């Protein structure tokens, strides 16, 4: 089996999930310059809501992609409502507050959601029921599963849709205007509060899809799953240049591939001194290296520092 190709495939799949989550971070950051720490938790809620639905249907004997699709379709509005609620309760009142205040409420929301999820779904790892046959395909010595293929196509389509919305529609134009200068955008008739709300709506919808996909791919869900995922996705967004859509996609894919290659090769490269458990170290070291040479990320805007 071709290890390199296999790790690249696994990396691309994992990376595309990171990218989906990273889009939510980057869009919110682009407009209100807030690191939405609760975003990972929205993904977690999506995964667990999806799991509950899929479990119900599996218990009735339903199988196939239809079950997953129903799970996603229920998770999306749940997460959207959640995202909207978070923005209204925790961020909107602090729009003019000192910069770190909304960061603390974001952390508060993140802890609150984790604990709420633990109260609702319990603290144990929950297993996604197996509703898919998941056939495998061979390409050049590596294996790609049907779930992986579906994840790649779904995330690809969603990224394209996001890009079209932001670049080609009136809503997207308003978003970009609000990102550049909220007060002037407001003077031009853009309802900035509504634009911010719709940004949260879009990000949360993407997070819901990512959540169910992550659950289906790895087969487990838990109230703490959002934290590390969110952290990685945020890292991906920064790696690509926070505020840039393309950057989030590129950063996510890159991070996924590097992590998986690290997991595959670190052991043999260092003669066993460092095993695959150091792959996170590699990911963060690369982030630091990239930021030293390109301080605004790979695709970030340069020279936008305020004077």
């Amino acid at each position, binding site marked *: 089996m071709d290890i390199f190709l296999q790790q690249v495939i696994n990396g691309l799949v994992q990376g595309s999930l990171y990218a989906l989550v990273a889009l939510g971070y*980057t*869009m919110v*950051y*682009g*407009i209100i*310059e807030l690191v939405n720490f609760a975003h990972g938790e929205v993904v977690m809620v999506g995964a667990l809501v999806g799991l509950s639905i899929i479990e119900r249907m599996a218990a009735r004997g339903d199988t196939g992609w239809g079950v997953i699709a129903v799970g996603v379709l229920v998770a999306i509005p749940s997460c959207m409502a959640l995202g909207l609620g978070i923005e209204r*309760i*925790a961020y909107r*009142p*602090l729009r*003019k*507050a*000192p*910069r*770190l*205040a*909304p*960061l*603390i*409420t974001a*952390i*508060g*929301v993140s*802890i*609150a959601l*984790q*604990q709420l999820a*633990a*109260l609702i779904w319990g*603290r144990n790892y929950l297993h996604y029921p197996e509703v898919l046959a998941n056939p495998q395909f061979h390409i050049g010595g590596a294996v790609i599963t049907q779930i992986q293929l579906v994840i790649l196509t779904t995330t690809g389509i969603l990224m394209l849709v996001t890009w079209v919305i932001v670049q080609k529609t009136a809503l997207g134009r308003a*978003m*970009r205007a609000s*990102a*550049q*200068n909220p*007060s002037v955008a407001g003077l031009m008739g853009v309802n900035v509060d509504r634009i911010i709300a719709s940004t949260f709506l879009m990000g949360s919808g993407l997070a819901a899809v990512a959540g169910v996909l992550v659950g289906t791919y790895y087969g487990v869900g838990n109230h703490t799953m959002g934290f590390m995922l969110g*952290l990685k996705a945020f*890292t991906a967004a*920064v790696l690509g*240049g*926070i*505020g*840039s859509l393309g950057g989030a996609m590129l950063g996510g894919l890159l991070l996924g591939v590097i992590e998986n290659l690290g997991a595959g090769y670190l052991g043999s490269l260092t003669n066993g001194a*460092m095993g695959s*458990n*150091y792959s*996170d*170290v590699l990911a*963060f*070291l690369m*982030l*630091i290296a990239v*930021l*030293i040479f390109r*301080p*605004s990320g790979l695709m*970030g*805007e340069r020279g*936008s520092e*305020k004077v």
Partner: protein
Amino acid sequence: MKSKVWLGLLGLALILALPFATDLLLGRSWVRLLDFALLYAMLALGLNIVVGYAGLLDLGYVAFYAVGAYLYAMLASPHLGMHWPLWALLPMGALVAACFGALLGAPTLGLRGDYLAIVTMGFGEIIRIFLRNLNITNGPAGIDLIDPIQMGGFSFGANHSLLGWDFPGIYSYYFLFLILTALIVLISHRLSDSRIGRAWSAIREDEIAAKSSGLNTRQLKLMAFAMGAAFGGVSGVLFAGFQGFISPESFTMGESIMVLCMVVLGGMGHISGVIMGAILLAILPEAFRPLSQFQQATFGHVWLDPANLRMLMFAVALIVVMIIRPEGLWPSPVRRRELLTNDDEKNSSHKAVP
């Protein structure tokens, strides 16, 4: 003037009597909690230098705490068979942590705001992953049987008796931590009024203006990082000696975030506020503990897992306080004025295009 002196003396008497009163009224576990609150106060004061004075957002601060703690744990425990005394390890912890701070700061201080935050966070994770996987740190199992803190034959961990009274180790630790907290407060206070402190606030308010006024911003930021890290290292040394056992799980990112919450919730840049934030957040989860008894009494059954409910209340309290007082519970008067007049400037800043 005279009443102020009396008020100060009264406050001092209260602080000195606090562990005894707490023990009598609430029990011994609360005295232990007080000790931890003081440890957190030291940590928060250290982070306050980085975040509050110099305005650098550090999300991996706990890494320096870990460095101090592991230094003490390795050099004063049967793990490597060494038993160094505190007077050597305390300054060493400060120094080594400061070196780590400079090591992290040197390549990354050119980064702006949130980019710096994510890099410091990554650094914190890297340290934790190494602690988990290295042999010398005993991996995920951590190090136990760490020597209690000792000074000139006086062991802080042991039970003593004072004038016939029982004087357990947690009392001794309380007074040791109190003295060191007072020292850190003194240093912080002197720093904030010094040339360096004023340079830091200039950088915090407007880095470009500070640079064009001839300040060596790079060196100053590095100094803030190293200084904050040193305090973190000192707290880590004390933590290891006090707890007697450490593992990588004590130094997660959640812990960094908690210390940041203490600083911001209390009032960034204001020493009294930061101390209050630290004590409040250290005690708050414990204060919500009776919730399970309350459930038992009202519903005759514990419906919701008390541990989760406790953290949930904590999170809600965090959100509510920040919304009601975004500038922190006890901000410095100067900072508060600045915040109230700065509103209009904020909206006109330029940002990156998505």
